[in-house]
């Protein structure tokens, strides 16, 4: 009999928790962006969703990506919002935390779609993209996918918009530049995360095709290993001319620094995930000599980039933006333009179609030149590399991207 009584408690507590959940969700108003200064009373609001790691180990990355969106939304709203089919709209960004976990991204996406009617939901990780791809076409929202993972577009999902440029254009020009200067032997010391593995897989054949040799693979978990000395020592024992490294900027900088301490004099090839300008905060520039990587946004002098960097510094108290911010800023503007072109803020398929039709753009207004959006849904941008020579950034290295 006693067990029966438990059901009363079960029931009451379930009820309680549901009420709690409901009231929690109902009352907590998104603390995201403001509605824009110049929004008139007549302007309607369209919600833009974001689900990314805003707490936990990857929070910094999540915040960086979110900041790009935030700034883009703020700018659009300050400029009077968007005009869609004669109606004024302001954008409202709603950011939810998913701790990098796909199941939480799925929950967040349901929430953003059903509670907030968001037609576009951004996420900066491939796991989240895969989880949302299970139902985004059915629910009718566009995924703004910030990941270079090629598989997200191979699934044939019609509502996936890949933001960053694919990484397979970098290895060749990077390899040529360091090989010419330092030599043909490369040791691999990349991270063990998926992105590093994919990069390595693209990089090695390119290096070998150019006549180089790989002395060994010494991949190390950039986020879990406390000290890289043992790996770097082992890599250097193979007498390489060049080290292939890459992961988050700071750990990558540690690898570079420790390689120098251990007497390495050669060059570095940096995966695009590592940002030279962020690494330079930890390692002196002269230790970065011979490092080739993606050219920092702050190094660009085209009007669009300059304007963006200046605006971002104002937006974030002097902080320098990196490509994460720049691409998200660009992406939200592309979405806004797409909405205007498509004449709807609701139909995700039409919005995506609209986004594909806004090209060509006036290059002066944009951070980087964007050529269009491919049939599969990837944004076709441009990329630039740069090499550190004598403690300074060398000349620009334009990169042709394959689609």
């Amino acid at each position, binding site marked *: 009999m006693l067990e029966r009584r438990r059901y009363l408690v079960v029931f009451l507590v379930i009820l309680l928790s549901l009420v709690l959940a409901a009231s929690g969700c109902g009352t907590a108003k998104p603390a995201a962006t403001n509605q824009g200064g110049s929004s008139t009373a007549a302007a309607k609001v369209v919600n833009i969703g974001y689900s990314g790691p805003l707490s*936990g*180990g990857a929070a*910094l990355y999540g915040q960086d990506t979110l900041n790009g969106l935030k700034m883009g939304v703020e700018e659009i709203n300050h400029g009077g919002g968007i005009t869609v089919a004669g109606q004024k709209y302001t954008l409202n960004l709603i950011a939810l935390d998913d701790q990098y976990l796909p199941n939480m991204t799925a929950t967040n996406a349901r929430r953003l779609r059903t509670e907030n009617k968001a037609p576009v939901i951004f996420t900066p990780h491939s796991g989240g993209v895969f989880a949302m791809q299970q139902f985004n076409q059915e629910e009718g929202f566009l995924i703004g996918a910030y990941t270079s993972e090629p598989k997200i577009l191979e699934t044939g999902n019609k509502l996936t918009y890949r933001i960053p440029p694919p990484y397979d254009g970098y290895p060749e020009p990077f390899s040529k530049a360091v090989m010419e200067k330092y030599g043909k032997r490369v040791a691999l010391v990349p991270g063990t995360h998926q992105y590093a593995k994919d990069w390595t897989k693209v990089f090695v054949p390119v290096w070998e095709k150019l006549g180089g040799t790989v002395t060994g693979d010494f991949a190390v978990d950039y986020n879990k290993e*406390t*000290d890289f000395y*043992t790996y770097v020592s082992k890599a250097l024992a193979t007498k390489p001319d060049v080290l292939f490294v890459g992961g988050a900027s*700071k750990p990558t900088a540690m690898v570079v620094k420790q390689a120098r301490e251990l007497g390495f004099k050669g060059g570095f090839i940096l995966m695009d995930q590592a940002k030279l300008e962020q690494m330079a905060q930890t390692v002196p520039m002269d230790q970065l000599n011979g490092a080739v990587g993606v050219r920092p946004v702050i190094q660009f002098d085209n009007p669009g980039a300059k304007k963006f960097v200046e605006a971002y510094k104002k937006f974030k108290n002097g902080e320098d933006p990196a490509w994460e911010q720049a691409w998200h800023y660009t992406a939200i503007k592309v979405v806004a333009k797409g909405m205007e072109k498509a004449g709807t803020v609701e139909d995700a398929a039409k919005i995506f179609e609209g986004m594909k039709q806004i090209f060509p753009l006036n290059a002066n207004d944009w951070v980087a030149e964007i050529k269009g959006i491919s049939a599969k849904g990837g944004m076709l941008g441009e990329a630039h590399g740069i090499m550190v020579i004598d403690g300074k950034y060398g000349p620009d290295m334009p990169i042709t991207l394959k689609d």
Partner: protein
Amino acid sequence: MDLFAQQLVNGLTLGSIYCLVALGLTLIYGIMEVPNFAHGHLYMVGAYVTFFAMTLYGLNYWLSALLAGVVLAVLGVLMERIVFHPLRHAPASNKFIAAVGAMMFLEALARVLWGSDFRSIPVIYDKVFTIGTLRITEQRLIVIIAAIFLMIALNLFLKKTIIGSSIEAMAQNRDGASLVGINVNNVAMLTFAIASILAAGAAALAGPIFLVFPSMGALIIMKAFVIIVIGGMGSIPGAVLGGYVLGITEAMGASYISTDYKDVVAFLVLILILTIKPTGIFAKGVR
């Protein structure tokens, strides 16, 4: 051969840090029977205190390390009082759960207060010594020497002072210790303070050569647990030996066996040890 010598030195550096953290953990376990899962997070806080003392207040490196020791000692005592003391009679799993809670709390708090960025403590001693092909930076040399110094100091304290020997007495026999008039409460707090100071020392030493970030504690705590399980929970010589062995094995393992499965192997060895000798190699008596 060159590589062997280099890896030996690398392993010693790693091992020194491991020893200091594991020593604190084993001391707490020996006295309190608490597997303090949050100990690694004390190490993390220690690193942040050192970092901020140097960068924000411009304190000298050694003074910053000292400050970290003081702050951590207080934090350790607080943790004992607030988290573990009320649970002293609770079942083993409750203490474990409280420790997990403390761990989550400290890490999340660190993220809220200081952000998730990787930070690096400025390096003052950055000269590189070269002996043949062997290379070691000044800071790493300091790590190795200072760790030994701290361990000797701990040993002298435990053996030569009255308060210190009360800790040893309690570790060996809790009931006996209280019978002969040792204040169990004070000893518990003292133990937490000492363990936290060791963690602060480890953090201040390691800070300039590693990166400082909120989950750095979670990484080292697993290793410290491996060490004290192998060395015998509560055993001081076991923790010291285990620390160096793990450090050197890691360095050698990285160079002579596959890197992919090295962690799996480490944990399998641990399971093997626990299965064959469930109380560890250097276990103190029968539990």
